[in-house]
Structure formats: structure tokens, C-alpha cells
């Protein structure tokens, strides 16, 4: 078990090294550059050269790469060309926000997706089933930014049920020791701030969770439809067990195996989905920060953030594999 975890974590090293080279070359292949972006269209050649010298951008790319990678192993990703603050500081500010948003989106997607998928399968062919199948098709097909705008327009602008943007109303007095605003509200004993943070999360979480929700509904439904025809479910019926025991122990435990894999993959993708959602809701997280960094060709931020997100993706998948073993003894790792 420990050996398995260590081996998987060691695999991170070549993955991240390869990705860092790709990223480095890729970013520099983009037209324009940070100096251009900082100085605007009318920048003179001299001022561009001055900025490039300041950030070391005039050196050959392999020299730049070596400087970058030797600093990065010490978690020093340099300074943002736009905000001029250390990248690591920007990370500690924005990651908790997106983490909180991703958790909220997952709670939404799993909390609705699994029950809905289950009942759709049990009521196969009913209106509920048809609704969930067509609804989930819609969920996958509608672009995230479009859904986000619609949600914002209807529920914030027109109905005024939810705030339109941000993470916390500036008029609310709140401390943020962890950066997870809902948790902060709870541990500082501030119900008003907690509630305010939750209300700010609702619409972004729905927008971000829509695709995972749709996928979870479909996978759960298909998986339950498979499992209810398994012989061991018939055995459980033949034992006269209560329906809830059969559902919980014999149907869901088996049916959720593929669902967990999908949840893991989707959880990893939430950080990229957050780019669109956070931009629409002006939610101050990783996604919005990356979006701005792209338009500013902020190499240091992009390199650092994308590497960390890739590392998190690998870790999330490792956690999924481990949880798989908890449920399915046949793949339990030793």
C-alpha cells in the first residue's frame, strides 16, 4: 500500500518535468510577450528590451528554463509580471477560493447526480428517466460560460436571489484565516459571513458542476441498470432482504465503482472548468487569475499554476485509485 503510493508519487517527477518543458516552449511560441503586454501597442523597442532584460527574457530559452526549474524545485516560481508579487503568494490567495468552489461543485454534482441516476435506472423508461437522460444530454451540450451567464442573468440580475459576483459582500465583516470563506465563517463563529459566502458559491457551483452532474447521472444510471440484473442481486432478493439493504449493500456498492472513477477524472477537470465560471462570476480564484495571466502573457504565473494543477490532478487520481481499493477488494493494493 505505502509502496504503491510512493511509486505513484515518484511518477509525478517525469510527468512534471515533461510538462514543464512543453509549457515553457509552448508559452514562448505564442505571439507577443510579457513586455509587449505590459507596455501596450505603442511600446518602443528600447522599453521592450529593458523589460525583457529585467525579467531575463533576452537569454536563450534553455538558460531561462534552467533558471526556472532550479528555482521551481524550491517552490519559487518567480514573480508575476502583472502584479509583481511572488507567484507562490498568488497561489496561496487563489487556490483556496477555487478549491472551495470545486468542492461545492462536486457536492452539487454528486449529491444530485447519484440519487437521480439511481432512480432513473430503477424507474427505467419512466418520465423521470427520460427527463434525466435528456437533461444530462443538455448539461453536457450547453457551454459552461453560456450556462453561467444564464444563471447569473436569471437568478441574480432578474430575481435578485443571489449575489452577482465575488466571494463575499464587502459590507460583511469577516476574517479569512484559511481562505476557504465558508469554513472561515464557521471557525470564526460568524454565521452572517458563512451564509454570505455560501450564497456567493451557489450559482458558480451550479455552473461548474453542470457537466460533472450530467456525466455522473449517466454513468450511475447505466451502471445501476447493469448491476440490478446481476445474479448476486437476485440472490439477495431470494434471501428476502429488505429493499433498502439490497440497494445499499448489493446494488450501489457495485454500481458506484465506475462512478468513482468518473468523479475523480471530473474533479481533476474542475480547475480548468473554473476558468470560465470564475470569469463570469468575477470569482477571485485560480481560473480567473489564469485567464488574466494568459491575456498578459504572464509566463511565470502560467508555468507555476499549470504545473501545480497538473500535480493536483495526479494526486486526485491517486486518491481515486486508493478509494477504489477500499470498495472493491479485488483490486485492493498490497
Amino acid at each position, binding site marked *: 500500500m505505502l509502496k504503491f503510493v510512493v511509486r505513484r508519487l515518484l511518477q509525478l517527477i517525469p510527468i512534471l518535468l515533461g510538462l514543464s518543458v512543453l509549457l515553457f516552449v509552448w508559452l514562448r511560441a505564442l505571439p507577443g510577450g510579457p513586455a509587449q503586454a505590459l507596455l501596450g501597442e505603442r511600446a518602443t523597442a528600447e522599453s521592450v528590451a529593458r523589460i525583457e532584460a529585467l525579467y531575463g527574457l533576452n537569454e536563450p530559452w534553455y538558460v531561462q528554463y534552467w533558471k526556472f526549474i532550479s528555482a521551481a524545485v524550491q517552490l519559487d516560481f518567480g514573480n508575476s509580471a502583472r502584479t509583481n508579487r511572488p507567484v507562490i503568494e498568488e497561489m496561496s490567495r487563489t487556490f483556496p477560493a477555487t478549491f472551495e468552489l470545486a468542492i461545492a461543485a462536486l457536492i452539487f454534482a454528486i449529491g444530485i447526480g447519484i440519487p437521480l441516476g439511481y432512480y432513473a435506472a430503477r424507474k427505467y423508461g419512466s418520465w423521470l428517466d427520460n427527463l434525466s437522460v435528456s437533461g444530462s444530454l443538455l448539461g453536457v451540450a450547453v457551454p459552461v460560460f453560456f450556462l453561467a451567464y444564464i444563471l447569473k442573468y436569471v437568478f441574480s440580475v432578474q430575481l435578485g436571489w443571489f449575489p452577482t459576483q465575488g466571494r463575499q459582500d464587502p459590507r460583511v465583516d469577516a476574517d479569512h484565516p484559511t481562505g476557504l470563506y465558508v469554513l472561515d465563517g464557521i471557525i470564526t463563529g460568524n454565521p452572517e459571513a458563512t451564509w454570505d459566502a455560501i450564497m456567493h458559491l451557489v450559482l458558480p457551483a451550479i455552473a461548474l458542476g453542470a457537466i460533472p452532474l450530467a456525466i455522473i447521472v449517466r454513468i450511475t444510471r447505466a451502471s445501476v441498470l447493469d448491476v440490478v440484473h446481476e*445474479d*448476486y442481486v437476485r*440472490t*439477495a432478493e*431470494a*434471501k*428476502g*432482504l429488505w429493499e433498502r439493504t439490497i440497494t445499499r449493500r448489493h446494488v450501489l456498492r457495485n454500481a458506484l465503482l465506475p462512478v468513482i472513477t468518473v468523479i475523480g477524472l471530473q474533479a481533476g477537470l474542475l480547475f480548468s472548468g473554473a476558468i470560465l465560471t470564475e470569469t463570469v462570476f468575477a470569482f477571485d480564484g485560480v481560473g480567473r487569475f489564469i485567464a488574466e495571466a494568459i491575456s498578459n502573457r504572464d509566463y511565470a504565473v502560467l508555468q507555476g499554476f499549470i504545473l501545480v494543477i497538473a500535480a493536483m490532478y495526479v494526486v486526485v487520481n491517486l486518491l481515486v485509485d486508493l478509494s477504489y481499493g477500499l470498495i472493491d*477488494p479485488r483490486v485492493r493494493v498490497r
Partner: protein
Amino acid sequence: MRVTDSEPLLRSEPLLDVRDLSVTFTRKGGPTVRAVDGVSFTVRPGETVGLVGESGSGKSVTSLAVMRLLPRRGVQVGGQVLFDGDDLLTLPRDRMRDIRGRDIAMVFQDPMSSLNPVVPIGIQVTEVLERHQDLKGETARAAAEELLFRVGIPDPRRRLKEYPHQLSGGMRQRALIAMALACKPRLLIADEPTTALDVTIQAQIIELLKELVQDTGASLVMITHDLGVVAGLCDTVHVMYSGRIVESAGRRELFGEPRHPYTGGLLASVPRLDAPRGAPLHPIPGSPTDVLSWHKGCAFAPRCPNRLDACIGGPPRLESLGDRSLRCLNPLEQNEEVPA
């Protein structure tokens, strides 16, 4: 105590009385299939009854219909299944759940797929005890250990914690039998319990079932295509073909003097160890898919060596002939050589 003489059996009231059972499968846009048609038989307390037939003869569907385990969608079940005087087919669902596992238990064909792969054996045994006998915690675990021991699983304490994939095929089937017998059911239905097992294990499992029903006094319905199993185990045998019973008799009568050409064919097709070397096997020509629909005539007619023109004209009725029932217009003569 084994009732070798069938006289006392015949006098007692039946425990299970299946009357005119029919099962029809319908699919949207597809044909209607009558898998079981007018099947009637009884099982008396302590009696062992065999349902014999090829794949597709309706024997498994019959047992699932008795247990009410067929899917509700697209399936019509007709007739009556009287158990202790109650019609199982019309009982409220919760009362049927009470009966399943407690009064009537079932052992299935493939022990690997019939056990939940992600739940330890122990829980799969104790859940029956918890459901029907209100045993909990350590008491239930101890009872489960005792059950596994009784069905011949060595080191039951360790096995309780293991998962199905860690057990051998024979042991899995023993575990399934332990689950079925957990609540001392009065009727055990075994649906081809040995088909998925090695030949040596098959004999052990049959022996075990035989012992257990003797000890508990339970009645047993044995569903099989294996005439050897029937010969060693059953008091009464019903031979099914294409959803109907074609011949019913006591074991000795049936094996001694098969009257239906299908029964005769089945017996003749069993390879014999004492046959001379190189003697040809005698299969029944054709396949079970070559059937007439029953409203036209006898379904076995296309494969029957004794066929008359009348066989295709109208369906034969199940007629009672003293100690047996027979559905045939031109049965084998008594002591007639079975035609090859």
C-alpha cells in the same frame, strides 16, 4: 430419517402445490414467448422433486416464478403457487419477502456470479440471519461460522472475513448453500447447483445437499439437466420440454420404464461406462429449437422417432396413467427398447 418408501409421502398434504403455472414474456415490438405453459406439480414435506429438461425447457423460469423473482416488466405469470395454503403469486410483496429466505430458499447455478464480489462472505451469510431471525453482532457471526462449518468449509472463522474471489468454486457453492439453509427453510429450490463446478466437486455438492435435506427434513426441488443427479437424489421426477411437463413419475418408474419418447431419448443419450468400446453415443436428433408451437401439436414431434400424423394435428393432453402422468399420443411400449 429418509423416507425410502413413497407411501407416507403421498398421504401427507403438499407443502408446495403449483397449479397450471404459466409464464409469458412479452417485448415491445417483439413476439410473445410462453416459456412455461400449464405446469402443475406438488412437493410434499421431506420430498425431493426433480425438474429435468434441456436448456430452454422452462425449468429455471418455473422456479423463479415460484419465488416471484422474475422481472415484473414484460412478464405475465398465471396460475397458482400454493405454499402452505397461501397463493404466493398474490401475496403482498412484503409478505413474500418474509417467506423468501426463511421458508423457501434458493441455490443458484453459478456460485461466482451469485455472490456479491465486494461484500465479505460473512456479511452475506449473517444478513439472512439478521433479516429473518433477529440475530445480531457476535451471535449472528457465531451462527454464520457454525453454518459454514456444517456445509464443510474448513477454517470458517477465517473464511467469513474473505471475499468470494478468494474462495474456490466448490467452496463458493457451499457458502451459497449455507446462506440458503441459514433459516432452516422448509423448501429448498436448487437451480442447477452443480453445472458450473468440476465433476468431482459436483458429486460432493450433491452429497452435501442430500445430507442436509435429510437432516433438516426440508423438501427439495432439484432443477437439472443431469439425469445422474436425478437418479441419485429425487423421489419424483418431472420431465419438461418446451415449457410443459411431458412426463411425471417416481424415480424408479421413470428410469425403469420411460414412456415418453423424449424421456427415453434422454436416458438413451447418457453415455455408459459398461458399453462396449467404440459403441456410438445416441443423441436425440435435432435441437430444442426445432419446436412446434403447442397449439398446433406436440412440441417434441419434429424430433420424435415415434411421431404419428396426429402428433402434428393437435396438442396431446397430460394424461394420468396410474402411477405416472404422460403427455404423448404414441408413448413407448412398456419395456420397449428405446429407439436410438
